[in-house]
């Protein structure tokens, strides 16, 4: 940066590579870095130590750093930043990078690396992390000269957060950050890459074609995904869907893009989606897919998928279109601009088939009515608590406004099914990779940026034990997340599959030696509550949510026999579902 001296001359600021990184992060507006130091990253850590604008959060395992940065990114919409050392520091981060990649989350991971002259010699703590992460990053860079640090970092943040977002790894050999070599630092305000030009709007002709189909449709369904959330197009989507009066279902990643409490919302779809959304999809004559990727957990068998529907597919990533299900009207473009263009085209126009639409709604309401009150059997007095009840109670107590993170398994599905979200970026879950251990560190990353909100990690004893070392991080920084452990003493979803497909042979899906969570949590100085009877649940939840900034661990013993339903019948169509242990469609 050019500075003016007292005599009016301009001088150039000279910084070491490490100081450039610290300065760049400040100039880029990075608030938090989640990381863990080690030899190859020490120059960078020293530079961060000598400033106090960017806050570094020391986690207890590098995987947690990536999940925390990921949670921060999902809640705030801004890229998360991670700093780890070479070798094991970097490889520990791999699961979190893959998690972010599968869900298209913007993240920049700065990895220390052994000094350039040692690369390839199997040096201490050397790993080819560029090679290791190649299939799970949007892009990666290796720094070859300290002077290129500002430009490379700018590209990294630009790539991570534009187009279809994703993680970007920057490998930084230790000699690139040497404190003795200084180079000119200028913050690059802009970046241009000849080989990377994400689309800014969809093809108008295609959008017109889509709108004609939408207005003519007799049985339309909007099917929207995480792309609408990351594309910050939720308000536009809500506007469009309300104008049209069409039903809408979202993916797990798209929850909250349209208010779930609204009549037009059918909830989410897919393997454990709502009965009415899966039925509506199967019988639709037009599916308007926006920012969703026809994932196998949504479609069930693609050959039987929505046999009577034409498909409009809007996505910013051309490779998502017609990857698993052929689109009739493909539109490559960002959700926001395409939806806005659709709004301007439907403005003032009447739907072509109001009677057909009314009939369609009658049918959908019929499906809704069929399952009302039959989703699960609430516990009778003296029976074990049902996990579904716990989530419903939490939703009521937090008025549906909390951030809810999850790990992976039955509790994840229950949290998605029974907590009703009216806002996007509130249900934070590892949808694509299905990473156990994600929820707790992700909640930490959110809570720091949203101190006045309830941030709840709904977890299970299997998942929680994968990242429970982060209790120590919460202690260090006073992070008051709520942890609700749906404790069924087993790996519930694995057990469910074993019940269904392996004649209840529970191979390694039970936990024989669970710790006393109460003692464990108290060892870190936090409050833990244990609930076994339904009548104790409400007071325990009241205690849990009494103070927004206090970490409370609520260990709820739930009925281990409970299964998640509906559940797609494997290799079937969208409408082929198990509805309970005894009913199927």
């Amino acid at each position, binding site marked *: 940066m050019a500075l003016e001296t007292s005599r009016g001359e301009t001088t150039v600021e000279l910084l070491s590579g490490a100081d450039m990184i610290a300065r760049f992060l400040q100039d880029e507006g990075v608030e938090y870095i989640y990381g863990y130091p080690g030899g190859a990253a020490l120059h960078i850590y020293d530079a961060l130590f000598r400033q106090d604008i960017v806050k570094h959060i020391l986690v207890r395992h590098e995987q947690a750093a990536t999940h925390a940065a990921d949670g921060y990114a999902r809640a705030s919409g801004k890229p998360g930043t991670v700093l780890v050392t070479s070798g094991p520091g970097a490889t520990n981060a791999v699961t979190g990078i893959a998690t972010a990649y599968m869900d298209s989350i913007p993240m920049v991971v700065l990895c220390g690396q052994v000094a350039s002259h040692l690369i390839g010699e199997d040096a201490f703590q050397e790993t080819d992390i*560029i*090679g290791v992460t*190649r*299939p799970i990053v*949007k*892009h*990666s860079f*290796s720094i*070859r000269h300290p002077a290129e640090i500002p430009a490379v970092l700018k590209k990294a943040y630009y*790539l991570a957060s534009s187009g279809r977002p994703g993680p970007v790894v920057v490998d930084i050999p230790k000699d690139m950050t040497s404190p003795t070599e200084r180079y000119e630092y200028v913050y690059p305000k802009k970046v241009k*890459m*000849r*080989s*990377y030009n994400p689309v800014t709007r969809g093809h108008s002709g295609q959008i017109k074609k889509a709108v004609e189909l939408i207005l003519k449709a007799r049985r339309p369904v909007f099917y929207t995904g995480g792309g609408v959330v990351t594309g910050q197009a939720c308000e536009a989507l809500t506007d469009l869907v309300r104008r049209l009066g069409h039903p809408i279902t979202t993916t797990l990643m798209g929850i909250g893009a349209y208010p779930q409490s609204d009549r037009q919302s059918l909830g989410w779809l897919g393997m454990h989606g709502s009965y009415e959304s899966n039925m509506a999809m199967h019988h639709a004559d037009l599916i308007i897919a926006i920012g969703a990727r026809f994932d196998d957990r949504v479609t069930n068998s693609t050959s039987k998928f929505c046999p009577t529907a034409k498909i409009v597919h809007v996505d910013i*990533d*051309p*490779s998502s279109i*017609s*990857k698993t299900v052929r689109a009739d009207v493909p539109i490559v473009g960002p959700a926001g601009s395409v939806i806005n263009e659709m709004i301007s085209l439907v403005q003032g126009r009447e739907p072509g088939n109001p009677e057909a639409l009314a009939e369609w709604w009658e049918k959908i309401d019929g499906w809704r009515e069929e399952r009302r009150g039959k989703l699960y059997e609430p516990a009778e007095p003296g029976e074990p608590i049902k996990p579904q009840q716990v989530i419903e109670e939490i939703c009521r107590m937090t008025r549906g406004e909390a951030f809810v993170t999850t790990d992976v398994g039955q509790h994840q599905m229950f949290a998605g099914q029974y907590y009703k979200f009216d806002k996007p970026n509130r249900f934070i879950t590892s949808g694509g990779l299905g990473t156990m251990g994600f929820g707790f560190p992700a909640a930490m990353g959110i809570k720091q940026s949203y101190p006045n909100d309830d941030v709840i990690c709904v977890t299970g004893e299997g998942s929680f034990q994968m990242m429970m070392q982060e209790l120590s991080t919460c202690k260090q920084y006073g992070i008051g997340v709520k942890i609700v452990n749906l404790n069924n003493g087993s790996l519930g979803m694995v057990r469910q599959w074993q019940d269904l497909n392996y004649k209840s042979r529970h191979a390694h899906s039970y936990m024989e030696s669970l710790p006393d969570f109460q003692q464990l949590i108290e060892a870190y100085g936090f409050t833990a509550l244990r609930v076994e009877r339904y009548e104790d649940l409400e007071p325990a939840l009241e205690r849990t949510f009494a103070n927004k900034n206090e970490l409370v661990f609520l260990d709820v013993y739930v009925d281990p026999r409970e299964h998640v339903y509906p559940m797609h019948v494997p290799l079937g169509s969208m409408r082929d579902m198990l509805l309970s242990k005894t009913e199927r469609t």
Partner: protein
Amino acid sequence: MRHIISILLENEPGALSRVVGLFSQRNFNIESLNVAPTEDETLSRLTVTTIGDDRIIEQITKQLNKLIDVVKLVDLTEGNHIERELMLVKVKALGAQRDEVKRTADIFRAQVVDVTPSVYTVQITGDAGKLDAFVQAMAPIGILEVARTGVSGIARGDKMLSL
């Protein structure tokens, strides 16, 4: 269907491994691969022959285009194009075999480029079919070693793959 895809790639470290990695990661086929710098030193040209139905080929081109290092690509098999491959073959050449090798090479417009008392090294260019036929013709005489470059190609006429 066999497709020849030519790619202009940023001449950056790791760029080639991203392309190759993509094929194995997504279970796409590589029949042959050929890569070298272009007249613009910042760009490499990579030509890959692959086999797949229309849906697979569409995914291959889309996924390749998504790689940040890929600047531009063309599926040469979509239009008229010239396809060439170069092969060096070492064959046994003793006694009467020496004439036989030379004659066969002439028929294929191949050149003998190195000679020892017992071995001829033959150079041949052409499309993959011609090279295959030459290998077949030489096989009874005794092939000792084969080195093929993999297919390179270019569109016919005014069509160009350039920036």
